[in-house]
């Protein structure tokens, strides 16, 4: 029955709501088609993103530090807006030569006329004075000559490359929030991941754009499956010790490991935070068979919610309701499939109809799952493991990656517009890089070099 509803499509998104509406509409209208790996709709030519120009900021003071910080700021702001997925960004070569620093200095027709043809202009000034870097940022509606100002923001921080980047992220998020249908931007979010090095795997973190890559743990063993808590204070992960893989917890506030007792025995892995931040779901084999368990954040009040022979792993909560869990199970079939259930273990629904599914991540609005899927898995089968998105209500799916080698561990950004994942052309751990793309599979680009795996996007 699913056969007739397999409708892979690819189209570019403007806004989350539009994207969802378009997806639902397309899935309905094209439901008679047979399965296709590639399907191009023409919505990309019809839906126009807001055309935005980002002027280089004007150096407001001739401090020695200003030039370097301004260069970092300009590059970061441009990149944030270009990667937001909701803008048609004006190439710098099509912009006027001027760098307006204040509202008095901008001539809007210069920006609204061809070839710039911008609907919106971001501009401002940056300077270092009195040991502080100060940024004045503006967003103007280029077509509204009478009241053009949309945003005016001022930031002041200790001067450093890092603060120049963070100010750019914050200003970008203000613009994205204002122009992106009220959905907060993600320029200040983090991605936690696994970094390979010399036979060990440690938990690392980076900014959403791949900058500021730095280690979190230094345990000298194999640590995997990092999951950041909804309030950004703790990272739960699974780490190999004398008693096998166990759930461990790192406090980002204290900067050290904190206790997460594994009282039950067996292997414990793949933790997942409830959106309340008060519970963790994970896979535990304390009964001799890997099942999904739920504990409080101190490892107490453990209860088992699945009871079928065979592997049950990789739970993830519905971040919107907190009342459902998607996970991977090999019950009844030999190969792992994607399932959802209520958090009390009832209402079990199988989502995939075959192949080999892994690593689900639930969209922030609760409507979609992204996961890795090899639809033709088996010895000798020519399948590839790619990233898919499935609409939960209809079980219809689209394929986001094609022909780039095995992909795994998709993780949704908090604005629902982006998906981060791991990929290597040959599938080898050492060659895995972390990639980001829009949730329709477009604008894919690498965030890290080789040896980075299992990304997990922060909740905010």
């Amino acid at each position, binding site marked *: 029955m699913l056969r007739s509803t397999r409708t892979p499509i690819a189209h570019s998104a403007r806004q989350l709501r539009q994207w969802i509406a378009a997806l639902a509409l397309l899935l309905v209208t094209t439901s008679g088609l047979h399965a296709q790996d590639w399907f191009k709709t023409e919505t990309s030519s019809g839906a126009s993103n807001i055309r935005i120009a980002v002027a280089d900021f004007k150096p407001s003071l001739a401090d020695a530090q200003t030039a370097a910080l301004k260069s970092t700021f300009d590059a970061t702001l441009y990149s944030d807006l270009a990667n937001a997925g909701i803008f048609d960004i004006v190439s710098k070569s099509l912009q006027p030569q001027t760098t307006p620093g204040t509202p008095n200095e901008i001539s809007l027709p210069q920006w609204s006329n061809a070839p710039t043809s911008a609907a919106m202009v971001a501009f401002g000034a940056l300077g270092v004075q009195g040991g502080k870097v100060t940024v004045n940022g503006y967003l103007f509606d280029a077509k509204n000559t009478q009241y053009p100002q949309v945003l005016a923001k001022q930031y002041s921080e200790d001067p450093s490359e890092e603060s120049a980047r963070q100010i750019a992220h914050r200003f970008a998020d203000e613009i994205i929030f204002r122009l992106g249908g009220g959905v907060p931007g993600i320029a200040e979010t983090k991605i936690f991941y696994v970094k390979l090095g010399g036979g060990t*795997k440690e938990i690392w973190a980076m900014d959403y754009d791949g900058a500021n890559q730095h280690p979190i743990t230094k345990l000298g063993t194999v640590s*995997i499956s990092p999951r950041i808590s909804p309030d950004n204070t703790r990272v739960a992960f699974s780490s190999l010790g004398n008693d*096998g893989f166990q759930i461990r917890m790192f406090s980002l506030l204290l900067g050290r490991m904190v206790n997460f007792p594994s009282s039950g025995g067996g292997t414990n*892995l793949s933790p997942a935070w409830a959106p309340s931040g008060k519970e963790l779901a994970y896979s535990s*084999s304390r009964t001799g*068979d890997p099942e999904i368990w739920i504990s409080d954040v101190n490892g107490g009040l453990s209860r088992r919610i699945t009871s079928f022979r*065979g*592997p049950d792993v990789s739970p993830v909560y519905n971040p919107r309701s907190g009342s459902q869990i998607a996970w991977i199970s090999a019950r009844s079939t030999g190969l792992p499939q994607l399932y959802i259930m209520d958090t009390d273990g009832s209402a079990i629904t199988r989502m995939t109809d075959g192949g080999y599914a892994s690593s689900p991540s639930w969209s922030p609005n609760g409507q979609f799952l992204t996961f890795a899927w090899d639809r033709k898995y088996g010895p000798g089968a020519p399948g590839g493991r790619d990233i898919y998105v499935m609409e939960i209500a209809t079980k219809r799916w689209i394929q986001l990656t094609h022909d780039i080698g095995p992909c795994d561990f998709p993780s949704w950004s908090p604005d629902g517009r982006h998906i981060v994942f791991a990929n290597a052309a040959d599938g080898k751990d050492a060659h895995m890089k972390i990639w980001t793309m829009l949730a329709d599979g477009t604008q894919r680009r690498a965030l890290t070099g080789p040896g980075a*795996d299992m990304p997990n996007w922060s909740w905010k």
Partner: protein
Amino acid sequence: MKARPTIRQALALASTLAILAAVTGCHKNKSGVNPASLGPAPAAPAAAPTAAITADPLAIDLGQSVVLNWRTQNATVVTIDGIGEVPANGTQTVAPSSSTNFHLTAKGDGGSTEANVRVTVRVPVAPTAPAPETDMTSEALFKQNVKDAFFDFDSYELRPDAAAATAGAATFLLAHPTLKIVIGGYADERGSAEYNLALGENRANAARTALVNAGVPANRLRVISFGKEKQFCTESNEECWQQNRRAQFSIDR
């Protein structure tokens, strides 16, 4: 307010119990009832339990199964070692990986009794290695006698060669009763890391279950899954993947 039982209520309760005790007692017991006893009436000396267990067939080849059939009388708790508590009468199909004494214990009010049946498993024996050197370390002896169990693609069922390997490990462990081992579960590089850790856990547990069924005490066995996080072989071909789909036996130190 909580009502405290009054003396009258207590007396009524006591007398009711006494009557009940007398009535139930009269059915089983012709002798008088002790009215002071408020508990269950003492039963008559119960008959001693009887038990019998048979297996069909008594000898099998490795991988085949036998049907156990047992009958007991006057027993309240019937257990078979390695299987656990069972009904008073019943049958069960088992597939032991090595020759096994099925030991049945029937406990009743009249005491307990035991019954045994031995199932012989004909294990294909590899050509025996030359007699071990006397100065051989236990590690080398272990390596020589205990072979790892290998698994099919995406499976944690013991196939015949893996059953033979676990049977060999069981024999060695039974002959060296102080030895403790770690059973490591492994998966090949294909598939997803988290799922492979669970699969490795199931593989190691399949080997552990076979050892326990063969009579090795569970407290001598420890299971750790490594999934695909540790590999024996890193080539991307079936020969190599097979090397990595295993339950590894090693001495627990």
